[in-house]
């Protein structure tokens, strides 16, 4: 299957099952809203009846913020004005890039881990419906959740290894090489190279995880033979190295394109009235929906690509009851 066809079919499926995107979005929204309510209450309490409320509403009030941040507790400690505009994306992207996702404030970390776990469940549902294996979203999610969890935990270990062992080695290497640099530009190039290399590895693991999940659904690989799933995925990638990479990159381009557009239109903090505040919130929320949809497009296009004719190699074929085969 051609990359574009996979994307096209994937997009159709994503659109067809759009209600599940809104379901995911709803969970994301509620999780974040619960935390944001705490922060809003803390901000409100710290403002009291002060006129600072007025300057904060009109723009930002740094004098207020100095006092607020000095006394903030709980998740409110993490509030800082750089969440305005594209900062809301860059702050997270920067931490993800450097593998600092696990060093969050506990309140954020637990929500993020719960969301991660939830996605192990949801991705099973999505791949089930995108694979059109005659199971409903929730039946599929239920059926494959534990298998996906095992796969995700396995991949998680590799991610942790990459961030906590490989990245520091690369850091050290770059540091040694650049020890006597008195020009910033070559160090910038080395740093770009460092992260390209690291994220090349991470994306490879991510592809492997995606196709392992897809293989698990396609051949209903049982839990006890789950190790065959990455083997099948690896075999698949070996068969279609360029097309699978092309598909991944194409999806990645969409992701960056969406971020670029949001960057252009993201309001920075100049809004003053309830109507405009609400409008800014809506723009941000639409972007979240688009992000979730694009994540689904990754799954959908990869699933369509995997399901389109690739046959399981003999050695990777799991010993399953043929009656249980759910290949469409």
């Amino acid at each position, binding site marked *: 299957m051609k990359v574009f066809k996979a994307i096209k079919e994937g997009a159709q499926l994503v659109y067809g099952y759009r209600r599940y995107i809104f379901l995911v979005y709803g969970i994301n929204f509620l999780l974040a809203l619960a935390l944001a309510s705490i922060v809003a209450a803390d901000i409100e309490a710290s403002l009291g009846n*002060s006129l600072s*409320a007025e300057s904060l509403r009109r723009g930002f009030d*740094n004098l207020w913020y100095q*006092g607020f941040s000095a006394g903030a507790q709980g998740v409110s400690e*993490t509030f800082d004005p750089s969440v305005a505009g594209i900062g809301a994306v860059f702050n997270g992207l920067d931490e993800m890039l450097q593998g600092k996702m696990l060093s969050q404030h506990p309140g954020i970390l637990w929500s993020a881990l719960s969301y*991660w776990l939830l996605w*192990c469940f949801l991705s099973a549902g999505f791949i089930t419906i995108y694979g059109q294996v005659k199971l409903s979203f929730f039946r599929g999610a239920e059926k494959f959740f534990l298998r996906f969890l095992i796969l995700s935990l396995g991949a998680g270990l590799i991610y942790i290894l990459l961030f906590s062992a490989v990245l520091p080695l690369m850091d050290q290497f770059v540091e040694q090489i650049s020890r006597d640099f008195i020009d910033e530009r070559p160090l910038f190039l080395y740093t770009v190279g460092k992260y390209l290399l690291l994220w090349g590895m991470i994306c490879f693991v991510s592809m492997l995880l995606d196709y392992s999940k897809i293989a698990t659904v396609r051949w209903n690989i049982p839990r006890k033979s789950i190790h065959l799933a990455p083997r099948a995925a690896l075999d698949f990638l070996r068969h279609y190295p360029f097309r699978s990479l092309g598909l991944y990159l194409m999806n990645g381009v969409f992701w960056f394109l969406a971020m670029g557009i949001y960057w252009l239109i993201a309001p920075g903090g100049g809004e003053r009235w309830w109507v405009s*505040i609400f409008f800014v919130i809506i723009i941000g929320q639409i972007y*979240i929906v688009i992000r979730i949809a694009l*994540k689904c497009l990754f799954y959908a296009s990869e699933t369509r690509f995997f399901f389109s004719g690739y046959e399981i190699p003999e050695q990777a074929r799991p010993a399953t009851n043929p009656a249980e085969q759910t290949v469409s």
Partner: protein
Amino acid sequence: MGIIKQIYIYMLGMLILLGGSLDAASDSLRMSLRDERAISNYTMDVRLDTKKKMLFATTQLSWKNTTSLPTAELRFHLYYNAWRNDKSSYLTSVRYRNTDLSKYGKDDWAWCEITSMRIQADSFYTGLEVTPALEYIQPNDGNIHDRTVLRLPLRRPVFPGETIRLEFTWEEKIPRPFNRTGVISDYYFFAQWFPKIGVLEYEGDWNCHQYIQTEYYSNFGTYDVKLTVPTGWVIGATGREIETVDNPDSTTTHRFYQEAVHDFAWTTSPYFKVINRRFESANLPPVDMRLLLMPDHLDKEERYFQSTANALLYYGTWFFPYPYGHITIVDPAFQSKSGGMEYPTFFTGGTRWLSPVGTRQPESVTIHEAGHQFWYGLVANNEFEHAWMDEGFNVYSQHRIFRHYYPRPVLSKRYFEGFLPLVFSAVKTNNRTDGSDRYRGFYSALKRDAMARPSWEHGPGAYGVNAYNQPALMLQTLENYLGWETFQQVLAAYFQQWKYNHPRPEDFFAVVNDISGQDMGWFFDEAYYSSNIFDYGVGKVSSKKVRPLKGYVEDQENIIWNEQGDDNSETNYLSRAYVRRWGEAIFPMTVRLTFSDGEVIEEKWSGKERWKEFTYTRPAELVQVEVDPNHQLALDVNYTNNSWTKSPEKKAAAWKWASKWMLWVQHMLEFMAFFS
């Protein structure tokens, strides 16, 4: 001079030395000794060995005793010895004890040794080799591992008005950069680099501190310095280059000369691009600006020049015209740790390869360091004890320029290991006290050192707050209280009185009192001599309709019962507002009360009591109360509690920002989902 006379002077000197009263060092004497511009004069010949990364040098020092007491010793700073070992007082100081030394190998440490010293023969002294008499001393902390102060005992004291001439050779190992000096690749920056004589105070004591955590203090003098570096390398230094000689060994000797300065720093590297421009302004003397730019910052040329010109223009107009006629701006090399530092007629800025205007780099650091040419270079306070007198004055003045010339500051943040900056143009930070309150520590409940405590003794976190932020806010408060016109006169008079000299805090306070015609002692007692914090706020506010009288009233002859509510007279409101003093420190306050009919009442309050109540019965409701509405007291640590309004927009404000934070969380969740 006859031997009898010499003995007589010697004995007289010893008498003064032993029994001399400190009263001799009265302020009038300090002020009368105006010959301050040529006390410590250096003629140096320095050769840079780029292979060994060493300096080989000779110094001829003439030092004049301008105090009223003789001295039987001389003391010298050997700053480079601060990085001779890891037990030095510098590397164990509160400020620098956490320096990451893991990156410093054997070749990256430093030392400085005087290999021979001679007193030159003249009418007072016979030529004398004194090297064996030299000894390291540790006057501040007794730390035997610290070799940053060297003492030369003298057989014959230097009497008031006399000059002693020394000649010494010395060698120095250049470190990987520590505290703005050292070498990285082919970039050398030399600061606090040569054996330097301390300051003999008017009281007769040597002020020659070990190198601990502060900056510097020296007398003014003339510097005539020959610097030999590889031919073709660009060189920048204090002073003007007056002679250049190419040597047969592929080196070039550059001779720099400068009078009336109290330090000398220099830099050399083959990579600098040199750009010259002239500062000209109608009422100020012209200044030749020389910019040494690193290749990754060539696009910052205009911004460096503009910032330097702004400092020369505004400081020159407000305080005193820059007198030297030339200034060298060094764009420091990446990783060289030499950025953001001032030396006479020569300073380092600092920027990054990517640094849009909103980041204010290099503007902020350039104006600051150029500004130090005035507060430090000319009005040369003792930075060991009173770091705030140059840093605080400079931060205050620098922010004045920013408010005059530049748009409001905005938030900026760096991503991707600091390479990629992002400017949040919609998030404006403070205008009134921009930057001065950047330390959250200023809000710390833990009371820090009083500003009056000597800087070299400051405890954890106190140096930054006490040297920079708090004094800047103190001066801003003074400006607000006295008015700019008066305060500008104060600063100009202070400058005029103390240029080429070493003022102490009391000298500044005296000028404030003198020029303003007010005794501001009460303010300095709070802001300078104590560690008290200022915090005024609005307490409980209420404004209720006054109900008609309920109870027994007299009706002609009878006493009758009056039930509430049958009075048709005009509705009045009884309004009460409490303002409170939460901090220990006291400052007079203005209280502004606004009523629903638009009427505004301003009240004065001494600010002395812990609280004060304002009560009004008026036909309109009290809707807003502000204590210090114009933010005169810039030192108030919590300005949020300074106002009360009946209907604050706090829900909209809170959700506006909480929803942005929420979006960040939502994205965090999605980033986490990538790994699932």
